[in-house]
């Protein structure tokens, strides 16, 4: 498809794609923010939730944080490579990021299987509802990010649309930041 002239203009000095990504992130902040604010006020109001939170697996959570931080690193290195015009290198690094996302989701899956086996399902009580909703919404973002990353990597491999490496990177870092807050909220505070 031919890009319209509109897409190629940049009155603000920020490329259109990146400007749009910032707006996406702003609207994501209020979605996650609303959910987490609701969680926090319940959490403070219900001291017994600390007991429920004790059943979460801090080690798995910490490992996942490490995985996401590392995948963010490869995403930003991919951006650096893309700016240098090295599409194939950027693609390799992006696939590494996808691998990080996959590990994250696998660990998540194992964790959830274990917890559901113990009876901590979505319906057990308010804490677990928020736990699965917040982490699940975040997981969906990881999954969506992985799919988009694969498309961007395929383009980057052929040195096409290299500016998208930066855009998906910004999104991925945002997903990382959400997890940085979910981790203490759901795992550490007990």
């Amino acid at each position: 498809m031919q890009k319209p002239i509109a897409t190629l203009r940049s009155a603000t000095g920020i490329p259109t794609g990146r400007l749009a990504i910032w707006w996406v992130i702003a609207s994501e902040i209020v979605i996650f923010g609303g959910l987490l604010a609701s969680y926090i006020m319940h959490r403070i109001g219900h001291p017994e939730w600390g007991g429920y939170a004790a059943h979460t697996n801090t080690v798995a959570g910490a490992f996942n944080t490490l995985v996401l931080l590392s995948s963010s690193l490869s995403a930003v290195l991919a951006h650096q490579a893309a700016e240098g015009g090295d599409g194939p290198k950027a693609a390799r690094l992006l696939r590494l990021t996808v691998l990080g996302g996959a590990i994250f989701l696998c660990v998540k899956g194992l964790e959830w299987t274990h917890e559901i086996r113990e009876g901590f399902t979505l319906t057990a009580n308010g804490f677990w509802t928020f736990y699965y909703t917040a982490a699940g919404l975040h997981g969906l973002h990881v999954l969506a990010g992985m799919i988009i990353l694969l498309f961007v990597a395929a383009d980057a491999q052929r040195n096409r649309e290299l500016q998208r490496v930066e855009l998906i990177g910004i999104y991925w870092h945002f997903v990382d930041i959400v997890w940085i807050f979910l981790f203490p909220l759901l795992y550490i505070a007990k």
Partner: protein
Amino acid sequence: MAEPASALAHEKPHAAAHAAHDEGFVKKYLLSTDHKIIAMQYLFTGMLMALIGGYFAYGFRMQLAFPGAHVPGYGVVSPAQYLMLVTNHGTIMIFWVAMPVLIAAFGNYLIPLMIGCDDMVFPRLNRLSYQLFLLSALILIASFFVPNGAFSGAWTAYPPLSANAAYNLTPWGASLWLIAVALEFVAFLLGGINFVTTVMNSRAPGMTAMRIPMVVWMIVIASILFMASVGPLVAGAVLLLFDQLLHTHIYDPAHGGDPLLWQHLFWFFGHPEVYVVLLPAMGIVAEVITVFSRKKLFAYKTILYTAIATGVISFFVWAHHQFVAGIDPRMANIFTVTTLIISVPIAEMIFVYLATLVGGSIRFTTPMLWGLGFIFAFLIGGVTGIFLGSSGSDIYFHDTYFVVAHFHYTFFPIAFIGSFAGITYWFPKMFGRMMNETLGKIHFWGTIIPVNLIFLPLFMAGLAGDHRRIYSYMNFPDSARPMLQNLRITATVALIVLLAFQLVFLYNFITSLFRGRKADVNPWRANTLEWTAASPPPHGNFVEMPAVYRGPYEYSAPGRDDDFWPQNIPA
């Protein structure tokens, strides 16, 4: 400022590429990425939904006037059906009529044309957002055909009523309603990102921030308000859906949940939502009254700043919908103050419009009549809001017909009068033909008189203590007085007259579409850029991409023979 002409040098419209779009009907009209076609899709979907919403209003108003009677064209309205009609009338009129017509249809149509570019920045995202919107409308309509019928827990959907099928008796309807609304939010989030990015980045050379037509500004501010306020409700809707389908307990007080959380999340979005639809209508009216009074918009910057101020303050007022709904009474004092503060920028906007009229040369064309009708009716809606925003008097007025009359005096001007102003004004550009002025005026008077006769009696009913969402007042002796029943009958008769006159509009719209007089490029002698494109504009909009040399409201400028001065004419 950079020389606009030289900046244009590398922007040659891809005429060949745009021409390639002239293909089959499906591809041209249903799968197009052209912003104008998408705007038409939104407009026609919105008009169709308005017919459904109007039919619902007919159903329940007839029941109120003649309780238990057989309603011609509907049948007997049972209590359950009454609430179903009321709930979906509200939902449809706000989310599937006001939003798509005012923001999506006019936003899509006007933004690229008015800022002088060929399309939205993300045409395919634009198409996707319409398709999601259409899907949400279909889901809502489908909810009428599932077992137990559509949702009947009011458009505010307070849990536990909405959360538990044992209470609302519509297990399918409630979930489909919620899914439809949430999907609609996603569609408008995508659309909003597109609008805001387009206006920020794709303006024609010379189109500085203070030269953007007011309606574009208003749609952008509205989109930002929507994006910033809807997030918590999206999260809340997911939780409510879990409560409905998986029986979690987030809003269930018996198991540690809190129903008030939903009320807060809903109104944190719900109040800015009022301004989301108000501001685009205000913008349309600003365009119309300046053109037809041949006068510069009074204090462009002031009105822009008041719009922004309104948007900001609208985030601080949400709990005035909940004064007596169980919130801590001390909070009500704070929200009374903020609510009364928001009346100041809105009042100022009205003053600006009045000041624009003063000293003009006013031509009473159909679009102008609608623009003036908006000011007249919205004033009534605006001043009655003060009664509801003051905590003390809201104790009495909360959830009475006074509230109903108040917000219909704001939403009717916004969703219908504002839209009619826009449609009649831009019809020549949209379809290349003129609408019939005589029929247009008949339609205007046939709408503006009945609408007052519907809602002025309802103010009285509200003062007399009539409460909302009651299918028959015969069970409440104080409300069953004949005097009050006469008010209800008056309102119902006026509604039927109103609906009948909409047929005039539909007739005028459809015949003008095919047989109207051919329109010139600039029939109203207006300044903004869309009137420099052909009528209707081709795919790609402009033969030569325009540059901008002045603000949009240079009417009757001294020292010129013409009383208008298009934005793209070099000095």
